[in-house]
Structure formats: structure tokens, C-alpha cells
């Protein structure tokens, strides 16, 4: 039987290496559930207020903010798509 930890590890690191949390600020009402649930204390709400991608070197891309947001403001976006957008 494959070691569960080992099979999960690559996909997690893949997400970590290739994804950001991206807000759709028009849906946000600044309730702060994202910030409250971030396990490492990133002020996600502030990024959304400033209409910025959540680019924080400490972000684990754990998805806690994405899942907890009651208004579907946050989503993961791959870096390559994000770069295309910036051009």
C-alpha cells in the first residue's frame, strides 16, 4: 500500500509552487472570515480590500480562506494564468 503522506505531498507542493489565492473583490463585504480562519494570520481581507492577489511568502495555499468565505470571493489561480493576465 502506498504511503498516504508521500502520495499527497507532491500535489500539495505543486499547488504551493504554482498557485495563488486571487480575490474577486466585487463579491466581498469585508466580513473578515478569511483573515479569521488563516492558520498563519495573513490578513487576507486586506488584500481583497486593496484589490490585490494574496501574494505572501508565508501563504501555505491551504485553502482555508477559499473554503470558508461565505461569498465565494476567493479562488486559486495558477501562476502562469496570472502572468498572462499581467501582460
Amino acid at each position: 500500500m502506498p504511503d498516504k503522506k508521500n502520495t499527497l505531498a507532491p500535489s500539495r507542493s505543486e499547488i504551493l509552487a504554482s498557485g495563488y489565492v486571487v480575490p474577486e473583490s466585487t463579491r466581498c463585504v469585508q466580513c473578515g472570515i478569511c483573515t479569521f480562519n488563516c492558520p498563519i494570520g495573513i490578513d487576507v481581507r486586506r488584500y481583497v480590500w486593496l484589490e490585490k492577489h494574496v501574494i505572501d511568502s508565508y501563504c501555505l495555499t491551504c485553502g482555508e480562506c477559499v473554503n470558508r468565505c461565505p461569498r465565494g470571493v476567493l479562488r486559486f489561480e495558477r501562476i502562469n494564468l496570472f502572468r498572462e493576465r499581467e501582460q
Partner: protein
Amino acid sequence: MTRHVIVGMGVAGVSAAEAIRSVDRSAEILMVTNDPNGFYSRPGLAYYLTGELPEQQLYIYSKEDWRRLNVKQLKAKAVRLLPMEHKLALDHSSPLAYDRLLLATGTTAAPLSVPGADLKNVMYLDHLEDTRAILDRVRYTRTAVVVGGGVLALELVEGLAAHKVQVHFFLRGDRYWSNLLDEVESHLVEDRLEHEGVRVHPNTEIAEILGSRGSVSAVRTVQGETIGCGMVAVAIGARPRIELAQAAGLEVERGILVNETMQTSAPDVFAAGDVGQVYDPLTGRKTLDMLWNPAREQGRAAGLNMAGSAAVYRRLVAVNVLRLGGVMTTIIGAIGSGKDDSPLSIMRGSSETWQQLPNTIAVANGGGVNQLRLLLGERTITGALLMGEQTLSLPLQELVSGQVDITPIRQQLLHPDSPLGELLMEFWLNLSADRKNVA
């Protein structure tokens, strides 16, 4: 040095202050509010009520943010506006002179007008103070009655149910939010509420609230039923706070009338947020939106104009994301029945345009909690409602707000058995690919 005075400290007021500061480092900005709690997320109160958020989390600005914005805050009530003299009278201090003034006074909950409505524990969900009072009361109450429609009433129902209170939800009509939702959608919400232990009472209105020692003890309905309860929570509508403007002779209707630059009929007086009734050049109507994002955008446009930078507020298609019976729901544009079964047609968290009924055909399909309904005009999608799965939300927002010509798939969408979601997704992906190729 220009002196800007902003009345109200909700999102429109703060957004205006940010906009002024972004173009003028030295202007004096004074914010006047009589809310002791200042700037916090009002829509967040619903999540504070359910216990998903602690109170402290509702505050959006840190001390550092306030320091950077560099505004003076005055805890006072504005009692009179003298537009010709450019002065604002306050309750406890001398009148304030201003160069430009913004009225961002928001709304207040419409009161219930039945005998007993002034009893203790008849409650509203308007301010942080109200939410605190409800949270205090749920510790001593086993049963509550909630009256109203729309999203605010539902937030009260869900908030109270989260604290194990037996909730009786009174609906004026035969189903929940019948001027906006279709039958399938209403019943989906009602079924989920019932599953959580909420008793939904269609076609029910309060005739009288009964009290004991000054506090709510029961309600008697028009239909003749008496239900014992320790609390009545009310969300029957919202009224823009126009009194200051009205008494000063500014042009008002349901809200304070403003043009595209958020200026009222008085020189140097602007209005924004829930209180602003904005002229929309596309429809020729003057519309109220009681939504967070339009309030922020209006505040921004007002602030820029106050600071002398020309900015036009372009009213966008009204979008809101709601949680209805625990199901995430996005409403985009006009999707209503055109009927109006509530005494006040608008409340916080909604837009007047949702209820309008343009010349459209509704198509819908779904299964379980995933529902999709589209309102099709001759060539465009004029409105959409999406419940549950939200993948289509962004595409739909773009298709509706961009008034994208959907002629290539319109016939397929109208076909009774067609998979609307798949058709739309495919159409949108092709459209995005085409755009990229053109670029």
C-alpha cells in the same frame, strides 16, 4: 486648505475619504458619525450572529490604517444642513463649516407597526449594537418569531437557529422571497430551513405582539393563531436616511437624488451609498442599490469629485452573493417577477433592479441545491440566478454586464431539456479564447 466633511462612517464614507486622500495629501477630512462603533463590516453582522466570527474581526481598519488615512473623527449627530452657508449643525458642538460635504448616512430598518411593537425584545438587525442585544437575548430565549422577507430576515432566522432557538419564520406571501425567487428556489430554501428545525409559516402576519412586564411574551397572528415567544426579530425593509437632506431642501425621492458625479441638487453637497438614488443613463431611471460594492464605488466617485478630479460613477449590473438556507447564491441583474408583495420593496443587501421584469423569457434547470436560472432578452442574458455550485458565477457576471450577444446559443438555451450550464461554459470559454486570439 479644503475642508471635506463626511457624514456617516460606513463603506461609502470611508471609501470617499480614501479617494480624497489619494489625490490630496493635505486636505482636511472630518468624518461625523453617531455610531459609537465606527467603521465595521455591516454585512458581517450576519456571521457574528451565527458565531462564525468574533466581534473584533468585524473592524476593517487597523490603527495604522486610520493614521495613514489621516481623518478627524467626530462622534456627533448631524442635526441640520445649511447648504447655502456651507455649514452643518451638530447636536453637541458648534456648527461645522465645510467646503464640500458628503452625505453617506445609509439606511435604517423599517419599524414594524403593530400593537406591541414597542415592547422590549422586538429586535432589528441594523447595527452592531442590535446584534449584541440579540446575542445577549438568545441566552434567555427558547423561541423567537422572525418577520420579513429578503436576505436580512433569513440571516436572522439562521443566526437564531445557530443558537438553538426555535424559530417561527412568518412569510407575508405563500413562499419565501416570492418577488425574486421562483417556486423551486423558494421551496429549496424553505425545505432546508425546516430541516434545520425552523418552522416556516406562509401567508402569516402579526396582528399584535403580546407582552408581559414590558417584554415580548407571544404574538397573535392575523389568522388567529397565538405563538409564545421571547423575541420578535424584524427585517421588513430599509429606509434611506434622507431627513437631513430633505429638511435642507435637497431633491429627494426614496433616497437623495444624485447625478453621475454623485452631486446632489445643492452645490458642494454629495451623497453616496445606500442613501444615494443614482441616475442611470442606460435606463433613464433613478435607482437605489443597497449593496456593499456599489456603495464603495459611489463613495470613491464622490470622493474624487469632491477633491476636484472628475470621476463618473458607472452603475454596474447589480450583483450580490447571498447564503440562502446555507446555499451560496449569486444574483445578477434583473431576475424578479415584477410583483411586489412587501410594503417596502427594498432592504439592505438588495437592489431595486432585481425586481424589475424586462421583456424576457426565463429558462432554468438544476438538481438538488444546484440551480441555474437565466432571463433571456432578445440577444442578451439580462439576469441570472445561480445557487449552489458557483463555477459559472464569473462567466455569468461577464455575460450579463458585458451585454454579450448570445444569439449563437440562444435557441439551444430555449430548448426545454438543454444543459444550460454546459452550454454557457462552452460558449464563454470559446469567447475568452477568441478574445485572447484577437489580443
